[in-house]
């Protein structure tokens, strides 16, 4: 049961964040790319004002895996970097915090593209 509760929390909160995204897709003319940008920027704002970290405390991966979590991570990184390096940290914080995710996406995509080929849809 101890394992089950955090999984359930992650499922519910993560699912809810996705369902909200789907509402935007279905009921507004926002394109998916715009919705993602909104999620990230919203994550930075909510992370910056300290609300998102509370959601992360509650839901764990349910809050860190959606792109709002990515935004919140950027804000957290900047905050730490500014505290450590001052003005320079403003520029370095975001990339430092997101380096692993972006680095992985870039490199794995490169590898993937070398190995695989796109296929027709059915």
């Amino acid at each position, binding site marked *: 049961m101890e394992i089950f509760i955090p999984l359930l929390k992650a499922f519910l909160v993560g699912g809810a964040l996705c369902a909200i995204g789907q509402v935007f*897709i279905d009921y507004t*003319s926002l394109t*998916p790319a715009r919705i993602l940008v909104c999620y990230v920027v919203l994550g930075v704002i909510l992370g910056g004002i300290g609300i998102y970290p509370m959601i992360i405390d509650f839901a764990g991966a349910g809050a860190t895996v959606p792109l709002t979590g990515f935004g919140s991570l950027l804000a957290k990184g900047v905050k730490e970097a500014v505290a450590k390096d001052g003005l320079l940290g403003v520029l370095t914080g975001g990339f430092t915090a997101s380096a692993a995710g972006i680095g992985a996406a870039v490199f794995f995509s490169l590898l993937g593209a070398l190995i695989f080929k*796109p*296929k*027709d*849809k*059915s």
Partner: protein
Amino acid sequence: MAQRKGKYTIVFDDPPMIKSSAAIGSKKEAQGPLKHIFDVINEDSYFGQATWEKAESRMQQDTVTKALEKGQLSASQVDCVFAGDLLNQCVGSTYGLRDLGMPFVGLYGACSTMAESLMVCSVFLEAGAIQRGVAVTSSHFCTAERQYRFPLEYGGQRTPTAQWTATASGAAVLEKGDCPPFIRACTVGTIEDLGVTDANNMGAAMAPAAAMTIKHFFEDTKTNGDNYDLIITGDLGKVGTRLLRELLLQDGYNIEHAHTDCGLILYDMDKQDVHAGASGCGCSASVMCGHFIPLIKSGKLNNVLFVATGALLSPTVVQQGESIACIAHLIYLSSQKEGGRV
């Protein structure tokens, strides 16, 4: 010489005939109800090539070769080929026809290109500028996706109004003669734009162009929907079909009993996941060349209007906020060389 009738319509004195025609499709087309209309089905949508663009070129080349073969002709006996497709710089046609050594006129009318190429070829024939011509177009799902929408492996959801670009090609060989079907008249479309901006709702964007061209033809020839066995639109799909019928009804023309749309019949609308229907130049080209032209040839259909519709958009202008300009060209096909409706 061709005569002008009314403001928009060209009537041919000595109507060109369609000597032979051919259609090629791929896997998804073979799973649909019109499987039997294709001369060749290539289950491999790469058509044995390394890239999607090469695949489309190959498909178009094969279609022309097949149409010529069915007419017992060789490429050297063709005076001019009129071809186009959906790709930038019409590369599907240019590279597909590169090796055939035929004089080439490249056309762009988006999904209206089959009617456009038949029309231009007919006028060349009527003017005596050529003795024999070929009209051909193609579209490929994968080339269209990567140029107009998203990479194939991108995880996106299609909206219910979206249409599925057919991987298909159709070609027709035209010359002077006495075997049906004959191209009796054509109406050059006007560019219509009622402000639709949703590139996932091409049917709605194109319906006004089809309605306008059909209306022009009816007015010019003083005919109406009752005078034709069939009025075939290109790829309006579910949404566009409904809108076209409504628009024409407002003008007092009821075409419902005679109207069909290639985009509605190429795929199984219930079982194949194509949302509002098929689209692409290859959709109307293959359905006409593989299905309806043979039906007119065999006398099962006598007076047919073919109205191919095209959305003349590019991703660039749509991103700049432009609405979708559309066009529709009309071809009047008949099993009779004389008489009839014009």
